[in-house]
């Protein structure tokens, strides 16, 4: 009985959470310009999207490209910077460690708008013209703390003697780093990278304030401008549906794999 209500509760919440997404997905299969009016089944919007023949605004594809490019570059730099930083922080002690951890927490606590406005003021103050570089720098700023937090636990779990064992067996410090330390940290670096990548993909506010006036658009800012203009480009519907599906499949695969690994470990 309790089980029934528990399940029911979860399902009601899930249906509510997913209703808008399903709504978009359903209406991605009709041609109507306005969301909500059904004009018969059609994959026309998908074809438009995939061939790049937009009815109205062709810069949607450019926005998608920008979004992915910025996310990839920002995630790569964040992973590098964050991993090096995590190793450093792990080896710090006492008050210094606390201070750096505190600094690392600030970008995570700050709401997007504060990060965005403060970086905007920085670039204005330094007379740096805003564009790709400033957006990427801004994204690195709010992504790196998450990489640090993904790598640090791996360092803590690691047997502290492993690095010394490598030295003991004749590895120079840099050999020990590449042959032992990096392979050990790789899972943390990978999840840090994925986290940074998706944070960057999702971002709206920070990009909004740091993209300048050169007409640089990511998907978020594109949608924002588009929506303020009134109508939504109909091709956004199939795009959202596709993104939604890709993320769903990715997450399910990652988690099923983790699940299986966990069960294997338990069965041992």
């Amino acid at each position, binding site marked *: 009985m309790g089980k029934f209500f528990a399940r029911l509760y979860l399902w009601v919440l899930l249906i509510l959470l997913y209703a808008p997404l399903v709504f978009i997905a359903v209406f991605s299969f009709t041609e109507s310009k306005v969301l909500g009016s059904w004009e018969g089944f059609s994959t026309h919007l998908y074809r438009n999207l995939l061939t790049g023949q937009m009815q109205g605004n062709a810069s949607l594809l450019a926005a998608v490209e920008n979004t992915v490019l910025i996310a990839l570059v920002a995630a790569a730099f964040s992973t590098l910077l964050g991993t090096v930083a995590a190793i450093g922080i792990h080896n710090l002690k006492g008050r210094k460690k606390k201070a750096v951890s505190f600094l690392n927490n600030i970008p995570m606590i700050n709401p997007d708008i504060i990060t965005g406005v403060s970086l905007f003021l920085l670039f204005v103050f330094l007379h740096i013209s805003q564009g790709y570089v400033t957006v990427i720098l801004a994204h690195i700023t709010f992504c790196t703390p998450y990489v640090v937090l993904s790598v640090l636990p791996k360092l803590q779990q690691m047997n502290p003697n492993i690095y010394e064992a*490598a*030295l003991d067996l004749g590895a120079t410090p840099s050999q020990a780093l590449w*042959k032992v330390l990096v392979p*050990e940290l790789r899972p943390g670096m990978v999840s840090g990278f994925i986290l940074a990548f998706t944070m960057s993909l999702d971002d709206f506010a920070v990009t909004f304030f740091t993209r300048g006036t050169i007409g640089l658009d990511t998907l978020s800012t594109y949608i924002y401008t588009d929506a303020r203009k009134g109508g939504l480009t109909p091709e956004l519907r199939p795009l959202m549906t596709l993104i939604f599906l890709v993320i769903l499949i990715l997450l399910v695969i990652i988690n099923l794999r983790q699940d299986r690994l966990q069960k294997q470990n338990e069965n041992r």
Partner: protein
Amino acid sequence: MDKIIEIKNLSKSFGDKKVLEDINLYIRRGEFLTLLGPSGCGKTTLLRMIAGFLQPDEGSILMEGKELAGIPPHERPLNTVFQRYALFPHLDVYDNIAFGLKLKKVPEDEIEKRVRRVLKLVAMSDYEDRDVDTLSGGQQQRIAIARAIVNQPKVLLLDEPLAALDLKMRKDMQTELKEMHKKLGITFIYVTHDQEEALTLSDTIVVLNEGRIQQIGTPVDIYNEPVNSFVADFIGESNILNGTMIRDRRVAFMGHEFDCVDEGFGEDVPVDVVVRPEDIYFTTEESKTQFTAKVKSCTFKGVHYEMFVDTDTGNELMIQDYDAYPVDSTVRLYIDPDDIQVMKKERTCNTLYGTVKDEETVTLLGADFPLKSGFEAGTEVKVEVPFEAVDLLDNLDDGVLDGEVHFILYKGDHYHLTIKTDAGDFLWVDTNDIWDKGDLVGIRLIADKGIKISRKDG
């Protein structure tokens, strides 16, 4: 004598804390040497300095006559087996063992031959493709040893390698380690806090405490002739008692006089006496009887019985014997002169230095104690405080100074405690109260219990 490693005047501090002080030690080629001591005694620090993970503050470590300081760990001709194995989780068994050889660019076929050989030596031949985290603790231990010895080090360092194994496994591995040492013929330096393991395995034992070497010797020497009460207490079970050396070969303790074999202490000198529990014998003959006692408890321990008795003079003794004696029965006991180990007392009272603050107060160990000295204010004084004159209090606020119970020695009819003050100074206390290690105590001095104050220079 062929010394492979020589350690001279070695000292090391972490911050303000001295972890090793003036260590002098040599290690013979091919021997199995154990660094033995309680946790925090500095044994692992010493091992890590030999391995090169820590640099000494003072002193030197010589290997075959060559200074090791400045040589980074990866260039030292020795290898380490780490406490929790430290196998590389991302490599399989074969690649773990081949790690060092690959770095040295040993040809592939040679690597294969050598890896196979050590795997056979540690009886893990079929495991070369296994992931290390699928292995049991004991198996990981063998791989860790194989990974170290495949590099043919001149010295193998082992840092509590068996500490993570269960008892049965530990016993098996002890035997195997001993055999491996014989087969390989290289020098083993072994760190452990387990005295039994040390006695079983070693050619030489170095007992460490508080960063200092207490005693170096063979297992038999250390067991039979501990040089001080710490070693006696740490190695095996023992009865440690206060005694007086009456003259050569005659010692008094527990209110009785005994013949012994020790000489050269002088006459009427206070000493510590150690008697091992298996060296106290039961007898029925009156002529042999040295003292009587009443059995308080009797517990079966597998091979022998362990009994606690109260002697006729009110001391408590632990006795081990193959026969059980009923509780509450009165028994006759004797001790052979050979089995009485007499040790010089490290100290007979606390000697402290301080200054007179005013008529009623003396400043000692950074605190003001109410003591009438009879000297002028500002005089530097030496204060001798008998062990009984230190009073320990539950309530920290009642004491003049705070401290922590650091070490406990039972002396048959009282406890001899080592107290570490907050400032890191030591005080020694005799008491009948029961304290536990780590208890926080307030410290007071009882003025009328024989505290002697004199001018520092006088």
